[in-house]
């Protein structure tokens, strides 16, 4: 055979092999880990957004309640303090793979949830406050935000579940141990918190 053709054939075989390799690799989900990592990160930023939104609502709520229920200073101060703690908690860039930071964040937020729940509960005792338009509007916004937080958390949990499963099962495991050695499983919210419902207020 003409050596030229032999070389061409050789190169062709190489290209063919490369294409085949690419197809099988894609079929093996070589892209799954980074794709799912990005998805989970996006869900996480949604969680942060919604918690921030809640924190932003609180000063107005506290002011409004103060106007009608000054004697509840203790509960009000607890909310203000819990908000301060929750907003001052460090959120490092690697929080989703950093169990300690994640736990701290979660604790601060659930403390804030608890103190907000108490605030809404005591507001039941003040008819004037309950019929105040400002309060009603803020309350519905807070309820809505708590629900958005619940949805964002649920989405995040699902995304992390998919990502962590990909890291630990075949064939994702292969890529996790070769190409993506630095990818760690992500932290997720504990179920106990999920069963809590947003504060419901009866009228």
């Amino acid at each position: 055979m003409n050596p030229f053709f032999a070389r061409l054939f050789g190169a062709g075989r190489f290209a063919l092999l490369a294409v085949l390799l690419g197809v099988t690799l894609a079929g093996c989900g070589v892209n799954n880990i980074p794709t799912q990592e990005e998805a989970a990160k996006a869900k996480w930023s949604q969680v942060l957004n919604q918690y921030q939104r809640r924190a932003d609502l609180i000063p107005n709520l506290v002011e409004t309640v103060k106007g009608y229920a000054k004697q509840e200073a203790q509960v009000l101060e607890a909310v203000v303090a819990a908000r301060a703690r929750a907003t001052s908690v460090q959120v490092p860039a690697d929080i989703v793979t950093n169990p300690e930071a994640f736990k701290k964040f979660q604790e601060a937020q659930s403390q804030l949830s608890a103190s907000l729940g108490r605030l809404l509960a005591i507001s039941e005792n003040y008819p004037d406050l309950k019929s105040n338009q400002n309060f009603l509007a803020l309350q519905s916004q807070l309820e809505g935000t708590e629900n958005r937080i619940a949805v964002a958390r649920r989405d995040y949990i699902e995304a992390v579940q998919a990502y962590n499963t990909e890291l630990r099962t075949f064939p994702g495991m292969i890529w996790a141990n070769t190409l993506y050695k630095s990818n760690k499983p992500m932290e997720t919210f504990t179920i106990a918190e999920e069963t809590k419902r947003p504060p419901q207020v009866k009228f």
Partner: protein
Amino acid sequence: MRQVLATLAILCALIAPTRAQWPAIPATSELPALTGRVVDEANELDAATREALRQKLAAHEAKTGNQIVVATVKSLNGSSVEDYANRLFRRWQLGLRGTNNGVLLLHAPAERKIRIEVGYGLEGTLTDAIGKYIIQNAITPRFKANDFAGGLTRGVDDIIKVLDGGAEEFKQRVAPRIPPAWLRLAEEGWPLLFFLAFGIIGYMSRGRPSRRSRRGGFAYASSSDSWSGSSSSWGSSDSGSSDSFSGGGGDSGGGGASGDY
């Protein structure tokens, strides 16, 4: 080595399609199917009401593109109404992809719960507070009297009114008028207020019709012009015939309001 790679590749190729078929989302089989703009699974509406609602909703979509769906369900299957409504909304994908302009009005008679679930794109117009207001004023009183048709119809009317340019009117009814900032100032920092007042008087007495003095008032009270009675302009040549209806790929992040009665 080559053999190992080859086996691996074959294994992958075999496994890839099966992996794709694994359900990514937990089973949602208990959710009702989207059979139209009015999904009356709990069977609480008469045919005439259903048809009237359907026409209103179709006309609204023709005019604004917003997809509103009314649903009654037999049971929430133990979920909270918020969780159920969000999953149902996402299953049905109300509103357009990217625009997310869908609204779901859900009633669960067994649990006595109501929810207005709002897609991302309409959260700014049909706010949580307005949703709550509609539930409490248009829907709940009628539901308490077992007038489900009336409650849902009024609820839909109000939602349409809000989305069709009437949002300002509702906002005025429910808005947290934001003066707490200056109330606080008046309470604790009135010397500063004095200073400010004199400053403004001084500024105005220089004879300039300043922008600032206009801005000082409440922006809410002004500009109710957007309320231009469009609310009853439907009925104009409704397509009527095409009953096939499906979601456009919209998403919701849990915006809206809920209530019970």
